[in-house]
């Protein structure tokens, strides 16, 4: 078998350029600089300090900039190198991008917790958390080139400046290309601590639409995902995990399975039976033939449909949960309120449904002392993804080769599939193992966005002011159900937000926008229930509430203008509005119609105004908002995982239905309200706008209130006919 992967990108680069390569490295503590004409000496130097490079610059001026973040479609492969290239003043046409090695000390971002570093592509924080890291590293690279040119020319550094790809000495009208400088590089002893950074008004890459660097290979089939890796002598692993999370398997027909063509090994895990076979089809055939009797688990007996009754009891109980926000005195506000509205909102489990099923390739050395992993991961708290602990080997003996991710959405920040593959590969070392989850595995053994119930009460005083807001979320998973419960941009003097726990033994995970989806649905729809009660315009009500939040208000004003809010929607249609803060601030308006016979909601248009601070890649921000809204629509209108007696009832796209192109809106229009504030994430701003906006449009259209996600046609009819 031929291999279509490579691991030693450095060696490849040396070979490709055939000559000189400069590594400018910034370790965060001391700069590590390697400059060398002799590839052998360079390799030796790299061995000594092998992983301190952000950029590789060759004598012809071509360069490779390392991207330390996962690329799952959000554009990290372009945005982060662009920030670096901006400060380095690189010629973008000569920039190539590769994934950085997975070494936290060098490539981690301190943007998660001060004093620590992580390589973790989650929470829409790639640009947010790496903005300063990439700027500083790029500026240091530029400083070194300036220093070297000043030595070459014998002029003070202060007289030099740069143009894209060149150091320039205006006084003598001399120029040196970055590649030329690299050929005779002179390196400073130390780097100053505070190298000046560009002002945003000086940006020429940040804020411009650059074509995404990896798209050419994403349209010709060459983009490599982990599932595409093929290695010599590779074998295939599959697991049968059942549909009852955590249940212990007992294999009934071991001899029969071992007798099947190509089956090499059976591996028993606490929760699954693993198989290794010489071919994928052989492994899948054997998997189909497994006879397993399953034990019970913590989820046994659990029924997601009837669980809401229990949730209602928990919400009604006197025991307070974990208080997340408490300001003023809601009880007092409610007691003195002229009007008080209470509503329950329900949200079923949903599944990530990333298009590339979970998979990994792992090769453990024959002596068990080292391992190599090919994986599409959102990385983790440990950049070696837990592999060293599993194998009992030092982290430096584990190489992680990050591949493109065929979708992440939060699922790939849990590396259970990597651990599984390591356990299988250990059994057949040194053969590499490709572990594939079938779609059925991926659905049944998913890690879902938890079901939840939001009990929300709003109190309005005699002057029509919203004075009290209480929001109790019931569900499993802490922040998984509680995120997005805050109302920091609405002026409501008395607020109480709390989480009350319910536990079911169902696997849970962050799902794009996490608790913001359900909680913003509850908050935003409640605001429209209040507005309707007060006979107030929903946008006008929000404008009053945003009196202290000018940036949020600007997005609301803008989207109202874009959607022509003050002009009535066409006959048979209605518009609904919602506001979300998730990293960026965003306001959205949708226009819907309804088939009253079938209960099908059609979303015709979606408008969104978003304030992300500095817009590093504006068109990509729009792409993220568009994708976020479509994923939001899919989840809001049809997606649903149901559990009966602990067992997941869905298994593939045939019964877990995603939105298809025919149901996409005619248009999604996004306007970016840029500023010079630190950039915020945009990947999860669009998604949680959708439920509130649709429910509010539905309320306007029908006078009825949708309160249970997803808004399937059956549920819509039920509400319509109630």
């Amino acid at each position, binding site marked *: 078998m031929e291999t279509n992967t490579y691991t030693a990108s450095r060696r490849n680069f040396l070979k490709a350029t055939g000559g000189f390569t400069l590594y400018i490295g910034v370790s965060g503590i001391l700069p590590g600089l390697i400059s060398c004409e002799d590839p052998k000496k360079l390799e030796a130097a790299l061995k000594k300090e092998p992983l301190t490079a952000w950029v590789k610059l060759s004598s012809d001026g071509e360069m490779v900039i390392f991207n330390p973040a996962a690329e799952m479609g959000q554009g990290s492969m372009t945005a982060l190198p662009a920030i670096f290239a901006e400060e380095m003043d690189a010629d973008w046409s000569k920039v190539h991008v590769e994934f950085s090695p997975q070494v936290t000390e060098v490539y981690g971002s301190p943007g998660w917790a001060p004093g620590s570093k992580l390589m973790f592509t989650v929470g829409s924080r790639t640009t947010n958390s790496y903005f300063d890291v990439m700027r500083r590293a790029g500026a240091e690279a530029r400083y070194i080139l300036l220093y070297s040119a000043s030595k070459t020319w014998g002029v003070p550094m202060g007289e030099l400046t740069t143009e894209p790809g060149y150091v320039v000495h205006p006084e003598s009208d001399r120029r040196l290309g970055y590649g030329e400088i690299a050929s005779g590089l002179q390196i400073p002893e130390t780097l100053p601590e505070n190298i000046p950074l560009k002002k945003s008004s000086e940006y020429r890459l940040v804020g411009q639409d650059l074509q995404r660097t990896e798209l050419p290979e994403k*349209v010709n089939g060459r983009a490599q995902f982990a599932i595409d890796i093929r290695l010599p002598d590779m074998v295939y692993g599959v697991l049968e995990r059942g549909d009852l999370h955590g249940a212990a398997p007992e294999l009934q027909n071991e001899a029969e399975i071992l007798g099947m063509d190509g089956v090499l090994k059976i591996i028993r895990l606490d929760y699954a039976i693993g198989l290794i076979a010489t071919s994928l089809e052989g492994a899948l055939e054997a998997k189909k033939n497994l006879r397993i009797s399953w034990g019970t688990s913590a989820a046994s007996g659990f029924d997601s449909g009837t669980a809401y009754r229990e949730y209602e009891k928990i919400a009604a109980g006197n025991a307070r949960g974990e208080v997340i926000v408490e300001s003023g005195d809601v009880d007092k506000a409610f007691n003195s309120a002229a009007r008080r509205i209470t509503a329950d909102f329900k949200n079923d489990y949903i599944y990530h449904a990333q298009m590339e099923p979970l998979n990994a390739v792992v090769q453990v050395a024959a002596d068990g002392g080292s391992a190599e992993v090919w994986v599409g991961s959102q990385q983790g708290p440990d950049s070696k993804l837990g592999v060293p602990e599993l194998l009992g080997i030092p982290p430096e003996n584990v190489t992680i080769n990050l591949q493109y*991710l065929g979708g992440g959405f939060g699922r790939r920040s849990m590396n259970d599939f990597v651990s599984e593959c390591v356990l299988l590969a250990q059994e057949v070392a040194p053969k590499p193992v490709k572990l594939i989850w079938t779609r059925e595995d991926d659905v049944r053994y998913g890690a879902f966005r938890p079901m939840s119930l939001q009990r929300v009460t709003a109190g309005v005083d005699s002057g029509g002011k919203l004075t009290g807001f209480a929001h109790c979320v019931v569900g499993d998973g802490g922040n998984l159900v509680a995120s997005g419960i805050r109302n920091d941009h609405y002026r409501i003097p008395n607020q109480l937000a709390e989480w009350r726990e319910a536990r079911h033994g169902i696997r849970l995970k962050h799902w794009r926008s996490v608790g913001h989806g359900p909680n913003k649905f509850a908050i935003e729809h409640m605001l429209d229930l209040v507005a309707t009660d007060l006979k107030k315009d929903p946008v006008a009500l929000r404008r009053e509430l945003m009196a202290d939040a000018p940036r949020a208000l600007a997005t609301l004003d803008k989207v109202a203008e874009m959607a022509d809010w003050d002009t009535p929607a066409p006959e048979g249609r209605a518009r609904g509005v919602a506001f979300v803060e998730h990293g960026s601030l965003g306001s959205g308006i949708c226009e819907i119609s309804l088939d009253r016979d079938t209960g099908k909601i059609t979303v015709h248009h979606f408008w969104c105004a978003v304030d992300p601070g500095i817009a590093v890649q504006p068109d990509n921000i729009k792409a993220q908002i568009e994708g976020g809204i479509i994923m939001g629509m899919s989840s809001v209108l049809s997606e649903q995982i149901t559990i009966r007696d602990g067992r997941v009832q869905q298994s593939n796209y045939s019964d877990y239905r995603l939105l298809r*192109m025919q149901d996409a809106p005619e248009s999604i229009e996004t306007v970016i309200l840029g500023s010079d504030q630190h950039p915020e994430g945009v990947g999860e701003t669009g998604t949680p706008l959708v439920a509130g906006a649709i429910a509010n449009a539905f309320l306007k259209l029908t006078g009825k209130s949708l309160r249970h996600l997803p808004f399937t046609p059956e549920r819509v009819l039920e509400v319509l006919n109630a």
Partner: protein
Amino acid sequence: MAKLSFNINQEQFEAEVKSGTSLLWVLREHLGLTGTKYGCGIAQCGACTIHIDNRPMRACILRAEDYANGQQITTIEGLSGSGEHPLQKAWIEAQAPQCGYCQSGQIMQAAALLDQNPSPTREEIRAHMSPILCRCGTYLRIEKAIRIASENGTPLQQ
């Protein structure tokens, strides 16, 4: 096990596979044509869309031995290896892909549409493309890319 011979992208490929093996596994795991993706295995997502005698088909539900009789199989690698197909160019112009995993299937499905109908309406595009799922939600940019390619003209299939 049988030795099968396939005509893929106008080249001959041979593979020894068990009867009943899906064409998708043969393409991906036996022959290394990994541009065609596995998504569901039951023809629900379209990530594995290829052309057989110029018609879009889902490779995951096809038995390999049924397509080893001289049928012309085209995969994304054969649409235009250089990425110069009008659809591939339009895809980049529209900056359509996000994660990219479904895009081979999307492009192959779109190529079959333009082959039959060089100037499709929006409704025709949407109806034709709806078998192919995209979880990143790139549908509007895919639609735009197909319109761009349609306006620029598309060459006949090889």
